[in-house]
């Protein structure tokens, strides 16, 4: 594939990713409102919010480390959008396939969190610093189970002789569900559950919204951000939601419906792309929207202990079951 084609695809994917991310954020707010018996904002509300934030004045506080404070929103946006290019998008493989693997996606997902934390530290506000510290505590808590899930899937693919196993494209083309025994299916289910628990933490949504925690630390790491910079974080957050849900889909639900329906050509690609979007939406609603409506914010120590002991143990037991499955089935 020539460089220009890849560039064109990347441009389309980035623009579409931003639009889909914001649209899904609108759906998320609408569905959450309906769950609370409210009417809720219109679906285009995130676009309106973004447009308004771009009109507002952008304040850089005198006490802030100005260059870090201004650079971090851009880092967050760039990393979120780059992660999109390494994600299998329904019928299409990752656009930058072969230039980076699942480990890179893990890092790209961690970069916006780190950028927000750095921005919080640089904001010169004690509330921003508290939020940033909480973000880091949460980052070191959920990264391990997240990595365990990814490594478990990749390792099982390797034992089945599929390479390169750490490529998300390969993972998406070979769903493990039908390739492992009953023990493996139990293991995969456990891994899926731990990944679904990690998802809202990764996105810092209720009950894991301690870094922002508007009612206790006044927006935490975003406390001093306004105008354009806040808009950039808003956009990064929307895109990261799609990336994280897309990662769950790529690892566990990469199936298409075009083949069973007997479609071919462009129609197949269109149907599969829509189906992929629907799957991403379902994952988002299950892992983010319902959870954030149904739960209250957890405490910092509850999150740290919960991830380090419970969710890590859960993910490791999933890994162990996959290993046992390998021993049993050979």
């Amino acid at each position, binding site marked *: 594939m020539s460089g220009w084609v890849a560039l064109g695809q990347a441009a389309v994917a980035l623009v579409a990713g931003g639009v889909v991310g914001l649209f899904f954020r609108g759906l998320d707010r609408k569905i959450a409102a309906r769950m609370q018996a*409210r009417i809720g904002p219109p679906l285009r509300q995130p676009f*309106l919010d973004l*447009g308004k934030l771009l009109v*507002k004045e*952008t304040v850089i506080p005198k006490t802030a480390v100005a260059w870090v404070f201004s650079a971090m929103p851009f880092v967050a946006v760039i990393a979120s959008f780059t992660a999109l290019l390494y994600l299998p998008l329904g019928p299409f493989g990752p656009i930058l396939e072969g230039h980076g693997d699942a480990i890179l996606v893990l890092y790209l997902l961690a970069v916006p969190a780190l950028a927000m934390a750095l921005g919080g530290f640089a904001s010169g506000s004690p509330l921003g610093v508290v939020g940033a510290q909480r973000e880091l505590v949460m980052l070191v808590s959920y990264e391990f189970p997240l990595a365990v899930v990814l490594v478990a899937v990749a390792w099982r693919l390797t034992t089945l002789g599929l390479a390169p196993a750490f490529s998300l494209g390969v993972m998406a083309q070979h769903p493990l569900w039908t390739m492992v025994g009953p023990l493996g299916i139990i293991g995969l289910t456990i891994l899926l559950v731990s990944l679904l628990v990690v998802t809202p933490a990764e996105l810092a949504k209720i009950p894991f919204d301690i870094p922002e925690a508007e009612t206790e630390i006044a*927006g935490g790491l975003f*406390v001093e951000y306004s105008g354009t910079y806040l808009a950039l974080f808003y956009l990064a957050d929307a895109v990261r939601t799609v990336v994280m849900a897309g990662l769950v889909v790529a690892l566990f639900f990469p199936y298409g419906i075009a083949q069973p329906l007997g479609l071919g050509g462009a129609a197949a690609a269109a149907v599969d792309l829509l189906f992929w979007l629907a799957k991403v939406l379902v994952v988002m609603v299950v892992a983010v929207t319902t959870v954030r409506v149904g739960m209250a914010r957890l405490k910092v120590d509850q999150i740290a202990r919960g991830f380090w002991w419970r969710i890590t143990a859960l993910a490791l037991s999933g890994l162990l079951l996959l290993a046992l499955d390998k021993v049993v089935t050979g």
Partner: protein
Amino acid sequence: MGLSAFKRALWVFHVATGSCNGCDIEIVAALTPRYDVERFGIRLVGTPRHADVLLVTGPVTRMMAERLRRIYEQTPDPKAVVVVGGCGSTSGVFYESYNVVGPVDRIIPVDVYVPGCPPRPEAIIDGVVKAVAKLEKLGAKV
């Protein structure tokens, strides 16, 4: 994009300057499913830096005056101030009290007054919508 952007996406910050919590509860009532201001794009935010409109309640006690001024200055432009309740509008029953330096318009410029003790949520929503008109007028001047 002009300032009409504010019409459907207004973020509100709530400042309590020594209020009795009556007006504050009514502001929260406007967020509940019964009134649901989120359907108009109105959102309560946690920091003045994110805000377009300041909802100020209370007669402004001596200690809060400096904080109120700072919060006003921390809010990025363009912004509007809505005073909610009789205390904020006139200092109410605390008028010329030894510890009260208000009403609010002695400390910061005010755009909309919502009288009442406490005002109904409908009145607060109406006040916020009037503040949008002020923001749009600002836009016409620019």
